[in-house]
Structures are given as structure tokens and as C-alpha cells.
């Protein structure tokens, strides 16, 4: 019982780590730290870094949460914590 809970928690932490890395990369990475570098590329009429800062990061945030919901629902089922 305790072991099961521990394993579940570790898998959960692994998902969090991956998803939060993406969260960090699209916003603080692409939208802020590497914005000047990315701005030499263009996405339609947008400079790429600017697009990430004002549009792209927000789309990714939404997608991230929905991926998280899916992953966790599966994980809950796998460990019998779903209800």
C-alpha cells in the first residue's frame, strides 16, 4: 500500500518535471531569454521570439494542462486511484 503510493508519487513527479520544463522553455526561454535570437526567424508576419512571447507560449500553456489531465487520468487508473 505504502509502496504503491510512493511509486505513484514518483511517476507524478516525473510528469511534472517534463511538463514544467516545457512551460519554462516556451515562456522564459523562447519568449524572453532567446527572444532576440529567435527574432531573426519569421512566422508569417511575426518575428518568432515576439510571437512566442505574445501568442505561442499561451497556446502551449493550454495544451500542457490538457496533456497533464490525460496523463494523470491514466496514471490514476493504473494505480486504482481513479473514481
Amino acid at each position, binding site marked *: 500500500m505504502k509502496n504503491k*503510493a510512493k511509486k*505513484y*508519487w514518483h511517476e*507524478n513527479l516525473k510528469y*511534472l518535471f517534463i*511538463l*514544467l520544463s516545457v*512551460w519554462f522553455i516556451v*515562456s*522564459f526561454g523562447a*519568449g*524572453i*531569454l532567446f*527572444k532576440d535570437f529567435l*527574432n531573426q526567424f519569421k*512566422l*508569417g*508576419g*511575426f*518575428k518568432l521570439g*515576439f*510571437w512566442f*512571447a*505574445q*501568442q505561442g*507560449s*499561451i*497556446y502551449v*500553456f*493550454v495544451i*500542457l*494542462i*490538457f496533456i*497533464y*489531465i490525460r496523463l*494523470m*487520468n491514466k496514471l*490514476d487508473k493504473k494505480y*486504482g*486511484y*481513479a*473514481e
Partner: protein
Amino acid sequence: MDVQLWTWILVGISFTLYFGIAIWARASSTKDFYIAGGGVSPLANGMATAADWMSAASFISMAGLISFSGYDGSVYLMGWTGGYVLLALLLAPYLRKFGKFTVPDFIGDRYYSNSARTIAIICALIVSFTYVAGQMRGVGIVFSQFLQVDITKGVLIGMAVVLVFAFLGGMKGITYTQVAQYCVLIFAFMVPAIFISIQMTGNPFPQIGMGARVEDGIFLLDKLDELHTQLGFKEYTSGTKSTWDIFAITFALMAGTSGLPHVIVRFFTVPKVKDARKSAGYALLLIAILYTTAPAVSVFARTNLITTVNETAYTDLPDWFKNWENTGLISWTDKNNDGKIQYRNSDAVNGKPVFTEERGENGERIISNPSTAENELYVDKDIMVLANPEIAQLPNWVIGLVAAGGLAAALSTAAGLLLVISTSVSHDLVKKQLKPNISDKGELLIARISILVAIVVAGFFGIYPPGFVAAVVALAFGLAAASFFPAIVLGIFDKRMNRQGAVTGMIAGISLMLFYMIRFKTGLIGIMDPLPESEWWFGTSPEGFGVIAMLVNFILAIVISRLTPAPPENVQQIVEDIRIPSGAGEAQMH
């Protein structure tokens, strides 16, 4: 029909709707009052959260702010949406599993201490009051500008409306009114944006139109960058803040968002842990609709403003310019006596324009405090959204709709905040500390009385806004980031975290943030003026300082907890329990 009539009709219809819902969703127990009975569906909760979250500032001010700051405005876009990722992944599901009513509840139980609970109550009150005063002011401004009543009357009407649905319905009434308010505000924001996007770029999606080509075949953003360069502004897409400051402000806003008590409390209202995750997803999706449109509105409005106004003779200007000049939000001084408007990158006015009773030779209102700089035009940032439909010559009903949307945004946020304030008093303070034996009925009565008092206080601040309110609203996020965020995250993810660590961390975080705010932003009125930018620590603005205060909180808490005894066995059991989603059950009564 004229604008005035349309506005009264649309505002009237939306208010009737809110009243109807308030009467239908009356609260009969404290559980109804605090967490809407715990039975709200994830989608409804997502909509309510979105309306709760998007305030008068998001609706009216944000697009204007971005319009005047270009890339720098990205901090609000990323900060106020990215926080939901933290909320969904790190906080909401666990707090739902914990299953009580409030944030101070969690802090008090997890750190087995009433002093921790009290500190949390104080933090919640500081954050909520600074925020709610701004909302009441927003209500007053919308009323005064669209319905020609003065600000005081506007605030009083707003107070009366909030009173009805918050007082009767508590969380239950507020939740279902917010669902309706979300629909009103998003419709009101999108309609003009779509109209203008089609007008300027032929694309009905503002998010895409913003990156599309305009009539003469060049990209809209390139055109705007070029206009900016010509007039001596920095390119719209590059901005002026330092990379570190952008980073710090964005982070502070994100952590602050996920630590705001009125947002967190919404996740106590859904039935299961699974639903808490899902409703965070819906909330962000619904918020993202406005937040991805706002930067497009900024670009359209900025381009429209410059091309319509710059180098145009005052006598040839469209009506909207003169209308807004009459409200005092636009001013023009003909410094080089050519009768045309020169818009340049400098301050046209020293501070805010002070109007005299006279008119100049072109018919413009004379101000007494123009600057010596070349720029002749002063435009208040807030009018970009409000005036946008007029600038783009949209039909009158759209203008009325924007007024109804602005009111929906301000009222829904005010209601959510007032509830947090009243819960802090009736539940966290009276029930949990002063009078534990109080009956459910008695507690409900106190909750209603405290919401009444909170509305009166908030209304008072709305009518007589203390000068520091505007500065402080933005800093509420820094305060939440510096206090709640670390205490809650560590409470869930660090089993070893104990009372000593968490309490020291919270006190240090919020005091440091308050100190920095007073030193560099607000000053101590009459005693000390705020210090200039050059004195900032590590080049961090007060808005971004929340990150540093938050780090101090985290580090202190971890170090001190390791030097003091581990938390008791039953508390460690709570932590293990909240990490497992099943068996959340209903929120426990007591």
C-alpha cells in the same frame, strides 16, 4: 439608436440576468456560502474562474498597456496565463484533496499552528483589499464614461449590485453569476476585435490578423515597427525593459497568480480531484481566448491611433478624438503652431493634463501644464479598449456592449474578492479561532455581515481612491508570490517542511516585499519619497521583486525546517494523503 440608449439597454439586460441568477442560487448553509456546496461542474467552475480572474484591468487596461509598451507588455500575457500551469500542476488538485474551505485553512492545518493561520489571514486580507478597491474604481469609471453619471454614483450602483448576489448567494450565487458574466465579457471583447481585424487585415481571427498583411501588402507588425521608428519610439516588437526585469516580472506574476486566494478557493467548489485539474484546464482555455486577442487589439489600436492622428490637422480629426478630449483622457497642445498633431516619443504633459476652461484657436482644450518636449499628444492608456470601437467606426450597439463587458469584468472580480474577505473573517477568524462552537446559522450570519462591511469599505476606497492603490494592485501579485506560493508548494511537495520553516519563510517573504515596495514604489507618504530606478537591487523593478522575496522565502523555509524537529506524525500523514487523488469526498464541514 444612439450609444447612450444602447448602453442602458445592454447593461440593463445583463444586470437583470445577474439578479435573476442571484435569486435562483441562494445559499442556505455555510457550505453553499463558502464553496457553492462543492457540487459545481468543471466547465461551470472554469467559466467562473475565468470571470473571477479577468478583472477591469484585464478587460479595459491590459490591451492599452500593451499598446503603449509593445513587447514589454508580454510580461502580463505570459505572467497571467502561465500561472495557471503552476496552479493546475502544483496546487489545485492537492488543495482540492485536502478539502477544506480556504487557503488559511490549509496553512493552519498543514503547519499545525494558529499563528501560521493568522499570518495567512493577514496576507489574504492585504492582497484582496488592494485588489478590490481597484475593481470598484473600475465600475465607477465605466459608469461615468458610458452612462454620464458621476464616478461616486457609479460606484454606489456597483456596490448595490454586488451586494445582491454576494450577500444572498455567497459562493453559490457568485459562481453562477460569474458564468453569465464570463459570457457577457468575452462576447463584448471579441466582437469589436473581430470587426477591426476584418477591417484592417481581412482576417476574422485577430490572433492571425495581427501577423497578416495590411492593404499596401506589408505585414502589419512591420508597418507598426516602421511607424514607431519614424516617430522616435523603440520598435514595437523589441521593447525597452532589461531581459532580467522582464524575466523577473513574468515570474512574479505567474507565481502570484497561482497564489491568489480568490483564485485558489475556486478549486474547492468542484466534486473531485479529477475535476479540479479539468476545471483549471477549462479556466485557462477560456482566459486564453481573451489573452491571445488582447495583444492583437493593442497592435490594431496603436496603428490606428498613429495613422489617424499624427500630422493631421485638429480641425480634420474625427469626433471620437474630441469626445475623449472632453472627458479629459486626451489632450493636445499645438506647440509649433501648425494646427496639426505631432505625436513623438516624449511626455507631452508634465504628469496628467490639467485643463483650463479656455479653448485654443483650433478649438482644442487648453492645458496649464504642457512639457517643453516636442510631443504634443497625451493619450490615457485606458481608452484604447474603450475608444477602439469608435476609432474603428463600429456600430453604436458594439460600444454599448463594451460597457456591459467592462462592468461584467469588474463586478465578477469584485464579488470573488469580497467573498474571500468575508470568509477570512467569518470562517478563519471567528469559527477557527475566536468562537469554535458557533452554529452553522450563526457563522452564516457573520459571513453575510462581513461581506456587507467589506463592500462598504471597498466602495469607500473606490470613491476616494488612496493614491497608492494603482501602484499597489500590480504589487498584490508580488505579495502573493512572496507569501502563499512557497508555503503551499512546500506544504505539498516537502513532507519534512515544518511550522518553524514555513512561518519564518512567510514572514520574511512578505516583509521583504513590503519593504521593497515602500522603498522603491509608494514611499511613506509625507516621510519618505520612493527611491529612483538607479537604486534598484540587481536592476529589479518593484513589480519583479516578488521573485527575489519568493526565493528568500523558499530558502529560509528549507534551511530552518532542516534545523528544527520534523512535523508530527499526523501532519506527515496529511501530506501523504493529499498526494493521492482518490477519496476526496465532500469538503469537510469542520
